[in-house]
């Protein structure tokens, strides 16, 4: 697969602060790639470096074979969708979408057909003579999308495009964007702080923190095998528990609270303190295990969420699907918790990096 965007050792500094700190990335042709991270992690800064709105202080960015460090923003041939849409308020929907084509001096006849097609792609053909002030948030979002892809850019950038929409519309628009991207096959770099959105929409995700990339992988990979405790905590819900790792001849054992111990296939020679992370749905109730008491049960329809106080003094969250268990356990019930060695992650206590 050929690479569409290659970022080598990119750095962006504000004074001494490194907003983007030596980032390397390679984004494939036609891929839907997401930069995910909490606010201030440098994801938008990196996106704006690609767009040409932030200077690249160190390192290099290539579009295919072409180094674009010194290419002006207006010559990069990128489509971009902005967080607050940035619709030109004095132009109609049609004129907004035609703006980039006019700048490229596309013949008038062709502009008309392309604008019409683009508006139909995002299902707002009937709104073409409206002014932006007469549009809802979702409709403005569609105009912004049409305006960005109608110029047939090599790359499409999206900076938190859904963050100003209400929850329901956000889910709806995210499907619109995903389908459109598939249909056009355009390389897309998407920025969001919403982990659920990132999981839903992306081919691959780069999780960022403090200007650095923590992990790159498919949604499934970053969810199931978070490389460190930050990612485990940031994506989805994780229960963290301290454990003790010991080694026998053949395998490692991890024990929690001195009462419960399971064998795990850790490859490294690590022994000592570790951190276990387990998803609420990866823990289950059993006959043996870590003893605990149910403090609060919350019935949520398709599953029940239990807050369990363990004998170690720690509180964990456990989800149980209602189709598996018919009865909701009452608050105060004494239970035992078991872990599945194949599904949990174990981290080095000091570096908080994955060892299992």
């Amino acid at each position, binding site marked *: 697969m050929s690479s569409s965007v290659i970022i080598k050792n990119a750095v962006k500094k504000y004074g001494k602060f490194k907003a983007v700190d030596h980032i390397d990335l390679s984004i494939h042709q036609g891929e839907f790639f997401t930069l995910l991270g909490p606010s201030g992690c440098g994801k938008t800064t990196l996106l704006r470096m690609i767009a040409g709105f932030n200077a690249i202080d160190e390192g290099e960015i290539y579009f295919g074979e072409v180094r674009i460090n010194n290419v002006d923003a207006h010559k990069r*041939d990128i489509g971009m969708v902005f967080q607050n849409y940035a619709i030109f308020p*004095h132009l109609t929907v049609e004129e907004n979408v035609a703006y980039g084509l006019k*700048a490229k001096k596309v013949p008038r006849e062709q502009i008309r057909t392309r604008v019409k097609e683009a508006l139909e792609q995002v299902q707002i053909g009937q709104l073409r003579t409206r002014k932006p002030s007469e549009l809802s948030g979702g409709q403005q979002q569609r105009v912004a999308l049409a305006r960005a892809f109608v110029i047939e850019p090599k790359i499409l950038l999206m900076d938190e495009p859904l963050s100003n929409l209400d929850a329901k519309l956000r889910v709806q628009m995210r499907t619109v964007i995903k389908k459109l991207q598939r249909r056009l096959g355009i390389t897309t770099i998407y920025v969001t702080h919403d982990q659920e959105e990132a999981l839903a929409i992306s081919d691959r995700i780069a999780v960022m923190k403090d200007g650095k990339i923590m992990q790159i992988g498919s949604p499934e990979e970053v969810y199931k095998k978070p490389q460190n405790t930050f990612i485990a905590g940031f994506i989805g819900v994780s229960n963290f528990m301290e454990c003790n790792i010991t080694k026998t001849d053949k395998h490692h054992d991890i024990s929690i609270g001195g009462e419960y111990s399971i064998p795990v296939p850790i490859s490294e020679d690590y022994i000592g303190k570790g951190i276990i992370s387990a998803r609420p749905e990866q823990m289950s109730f059993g006959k043996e295990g870590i003893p605990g008491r149910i403090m609060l049960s919350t019935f949520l329809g398709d599953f029940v969420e239990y807050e369990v106080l363990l004998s170690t003094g720690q509180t964990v969250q456990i989800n149980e699907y209602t189709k598996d268990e018919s009865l909701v356990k009452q608050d105060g019930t004494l239970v035992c918790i078991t872990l599945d060695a194949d599904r949990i992650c174990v981290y080095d206590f000091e570096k908080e990096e994955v060892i299992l």
Partner: protein
Amino acid sequence: MKSPIKPDFWFWVKILLVAILALFLIYPFSSLLYRSFFSAKTGQLSLANYIRFFEKPYYYRTLFRSLFVSGTAMAATVLIGVPMAYLMTRYNVMGKKYIHILIIMSLMSPPFIGAYSWIMLLGRAGAVTRFFAGIGITLPTIYGKLGIILVFTFKLFPYVYLYTSGAMLSIDRSLEEAAENLGSNKLRRLLTISLPVVMPSIAAGAVMVFMTSLADFGTPMLIGEGYPVLPVLVYNEYMSEMGGNANLASTLSVIVVTCSMSVLLLQKYFVSRKNYVMTAMRPPLEEKVHGLKRFFVTLPVLLVTGIGIIPQIVVVVTSFMKTDFTGFIGGFSLNSYEIIANRLGTNIRNTYVFSTIAILIIVFLGILISYIIVRHRGKTGAILDILIMFPYVIPGAVLGISLIVAFNKPPLLLTGTAAIMIAAFVVRKLPYTVRSGSAFLQQMDPSIEEASINLGVSPMKTFFRLTARLMAPGVMSGAVLSWITCINELSSSVMLYGGKTSTIAVAIYTEIVRNSYGTAAALASILTITTAISLLTFLKISKGKVSVI
């Protein structure tokens, strides 16, 4: 958007703007500062001029007088302006919309017209004075400090009114509802919530009053008579030293500027740190009162506004009175207008030509400066932001002298030309356009420009095609204010005009000095009508989104 290191379009724009401001603002004012330390006797730099100022009662008393008059006017405008703002924002005052426009109108008209009108009414031969003299009552004299304070108060209370009512409308209803819910009655709510929250705005308005009255030349000159304040002294010293040097006048100028600058900085220091102004999701409701109560709510508002607008009415009425060389002779005629058309046509033409040229330059510079201040928050932006505040604290007379001092010898010999008049207009009135333009731009999402660049339009083209186009309402409203103040400009023009470059404002001043009240009224009416039309245009294009202050 960070500007790249390589010299781009904005790099050259910044150089151009800084060069212009350096030439017409920094250089003249530095020359003035230099002059103020220059001793005429020894020909060396010394503190002699300053020592002379603080030793001689004749000089230093003018400083006290200036501070007294400005301070009293400031207190009076607060006492009038704040209750006005309260009544206008909280009650259904009758004819509210029109009253609001009239209040702005009285602020926009030149102060010396106020002075002139009060002389026409309450002066020695004034209509009211004679009426009371006829029934045996002698009114106190209007000349001197009383007159100055009267004119300032009714001319400048709109500053306090506008700042305060703007702030009162921005208090969210929930704030007072919360206080009410916690058991506060109406008076207590006003004293403990509403007033403290709008306090910074009241202070800002009061400081504007103080600085404007400290800088005004026309009013004390006309109605002050034996009561010289600083700007008058600057003028007298300068005029009496004509042909010689302007050293002492420069010293006085520096002292005036120091005063207004200190007040401005004090206000910034104490007030800006407490800015509670918010955007009200739900602005406060106006209370609907009926019948007699509504009448009593409207009466004081109407009374104050009425007094404020009297000068304009007096001016227009007297301009149609029949006159000869002895003064008004009863009956109405157009002879004042005939006289000015024959004798002062040049002044009228100059006013409009100079102001139009100045406005074109102001709009051009204003758009660029606002853009750099708001979008390029670098060093140049910060410098421009400070420089643009400077004309607010430099009185017109002082700017006039600075320009003369700076441009009275080759290669930059500009004194007596139209260019120097226009330069003074531009420097003095540019801030209105910049403030309005940058306030407007601040509300505009920067990603709109980025979207355009991203779609393949270069930054320079984006600026002219998109940004400038979108900034137009803000810049144009500011430009109307610049225009109104240009045509009414007296204090710098009176220093700078030459035989062929006199304006209407200057002519009004000289006509009043010559007791030619009829022609002065006709000229003043032209200004008043132009101001009124321009102001209505402003209110129409700004749609209430851009404030006049």
